[in-house]
């Protein structure tokens, strides 16, 4: 029984990490209809940013969150203004945006190889191996901290539904042309959304770096997981993303009871295929940001 409780706790904590990885990807697709392949590169960059701040300035990774968010937000806005906005939108711009953002990912990755080499790096703090007791079992303090931080972007849901800026973002996601008619600066909304989505990817990279070792190839597997979560949850749905992350984590963790361990991560992809066949819009439908 205790083993099942431990597994349930693990699943919830893992869901927090998956959700953090996927928020940015879902947000950008929800508003701009762009599949941001540079998401993986920014995840990696967030990890290295946290590493440099920790190694050079001695800054705790959790205290460096605002700095990492600011830098990656700025990078996202620049990326949008400099490159992405010149692309055609919607289905017509699909291949171009995929190629462009894949190129950005490659540049980031190879830049990291040049600067940091292919060696694995880690962020180690005094609490990296500390554990706390949760429901009779021990879990890493770091994983609990990552889960708590992962809940913060859910605030984004409130921002999108309650504030003027949030309503503007949702309106642009629904019909950009009409927004122009009512005085909403669509380009500004796009730039900010791309920046926020990129910042969330940077945050996910930083949080991952507190748990795992990383190298310039980091982010590839995380991008795949993010795709699964975003598509399962319904593209553009933030609550859906959170619930899909929980579903994926529960399926992966509990699959070990009936499957060999090496197959458990494949279970998530099987669930994805089943959901796409039965509910092509995702479990929670193709809502526009909530």
């Amino acid at each position, binding site marked *: 029984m205790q083993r099942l409780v431990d597994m349930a706790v*693990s699943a919830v904590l893992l869901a927090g990490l998956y959700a953090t990885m996927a928020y940015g990807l879902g947000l950008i697709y929800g508003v701009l209809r762009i599949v941001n392949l540079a998401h993986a590169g920014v995840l990696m960059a967030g990890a290295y940013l946290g590493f440099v701040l920790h190694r050079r300035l001695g800054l705790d990774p959790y205290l460096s969150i605002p700095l990492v968010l600011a830098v990656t937000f700025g990078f996202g806005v620049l990326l949008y203004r400099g490159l992405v906005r010149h692309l055609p939108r919607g289905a017509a711009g699909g291949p171009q945006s995929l190629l462009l953002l894949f190129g950005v990912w490659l540049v980031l990755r190879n830049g990291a190889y040049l600067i940091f*080499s292919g060696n694995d790096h880690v962020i*180690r703090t005094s609490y990296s*191996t500390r554990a706390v007791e949760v429901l009779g079992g021990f879990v890493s303090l770091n*994983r609990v901290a990552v889960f708590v931080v992962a809940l913060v972007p859910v605030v984004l849901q409130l921002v999108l539904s309650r504030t003027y800026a949030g309503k503007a973002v949702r309106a642009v996601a629904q019909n950009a042309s009409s927004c122009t008619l009512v005085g909403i600066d669509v380009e500004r909304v796009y730039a900010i959304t791309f920046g926020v989505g990129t910042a969330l990817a940077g945050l996910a990279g930083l949080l991952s770096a507190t748990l795992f070792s990383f190298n310039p190839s980091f982010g590839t597997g995380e991008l795949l997981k993010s795709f699964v979560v975003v598509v399962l949850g319904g593209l553009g749905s933030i609550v859906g993303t959170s619930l899909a992350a929980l579903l994926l984590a529960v399926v992966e963790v509990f699959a070990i009871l009936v499957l060999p361990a090496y197959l458990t991560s494949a279970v998530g992809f099987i669930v994805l295929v089943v959901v796409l066949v039965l509910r092509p819009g995702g479990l929670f439908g193709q809502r526009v940001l909530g």
Partner: protein
Amino acid sequence: MHLTRPRVIPWLAAALVAVAPACRSRSGSAPTRVAIGATLPLTGAEARIGGFFKEGYQLAVDEVNQRGGLQVGGRKLPVALTLLDDTSTQATAVNLADRLINSDKVDFLLGTYASHLVQAQSAVAEQNRVPYVNGGGGATDIYRRGYKYLFGIIAPVELLGTTLMQWIDREQKAGKLPRPAKIALLWENTAHGQDFRKGVSEFVNTSGGGYTVAVDESFELGGKDFSALLGAVKAAQVDLFLVDAHLPDYITIHRQYIGAGLCHPVVSYGARGSEKGAVEALGREHVSYILSAVWWNAQLAQTIPQAKAFAEAFQARYQRAPEWFQALAYESGRVLFTAIEQAGTLDREAVRAKLAALDMPSLLPGGRLRFPADKGQQVQNSFVVQQNMPDGSSPIVFPADVATARGVAPNPNCKR
């Protein structure tokens, strides 16, 4: 007879014309150097270790050239190494090997690093009948294809599991570990992991009831959450926690292992354990008493003359102690050069024959090296088992003839 002779002469002439270009290209003029080709993963996922192999190759080549070159047929010929970056990808490794052989016209090849790259690249060498000596492909599958030109100076990973179990068995027989002992055997789902599992499992099967495998699970490379797997280990209440993992997975698993409050009398992550990166990531106190088994350790210099000579030369050149990566790369070069000198020619068939028959002093554990034909020309030298100590050292604890410390079992950390 009178009728057939005129027919034979034109055929003979035609055959000579056909063969002549091939003879000219390789033996038409006297060679002025020994051209060696190699690729290494100098960028990409395996870049770190590719860099280590490069150091070993360069040291071996420079040593020979400082002596005036290789003694080939009464003449000293310098060695020219053409080293290319295969970017850690199979396709590039294959293409570059083809280029080295057919465009750069190298005489022999030294191998790349990582089993999957060696597996793909060695096929090109075999097709072109070029001797290929490597220290980077340890998976036994590579040597089960009946290749004649492939030589591996890296012992099979099966022996890693076996050597580790031999030390554990010694401690069990000394009454320091329970009998029977329950094992949790976790292995990465690769040829490396499968070989490790095979080595441990075969030892268990012949142990006469000394061990039982309570958990036998593989895991995906680069996994993020091992809590379910560790939950199974916890529930099985095992004595020996034996894992085969790459460095990133070792760090991830062991962080979660510590976080889950686990501790076992024997803990090993296969070939991983003493790496500086792991100590930095996990803290010295958390890696203490972890066992690892590796192909070579600089402490072998205390008992093996060739290891001493290499360790001193490496230290003098790079101002640091070598690891097994550089040692195996250096030894690959040394072995190939020895075979060339013994053959006294650059003829590939002659050098291949010398390699196949080689039995020479070596820096490897055991002190000698040969390529047994029944093992696909892969050396079968023992591994060395080392154990991390609280003072940061990692002495060799097994085999006894090269051990620099006794080793500690059970893990004292579990008493705290």
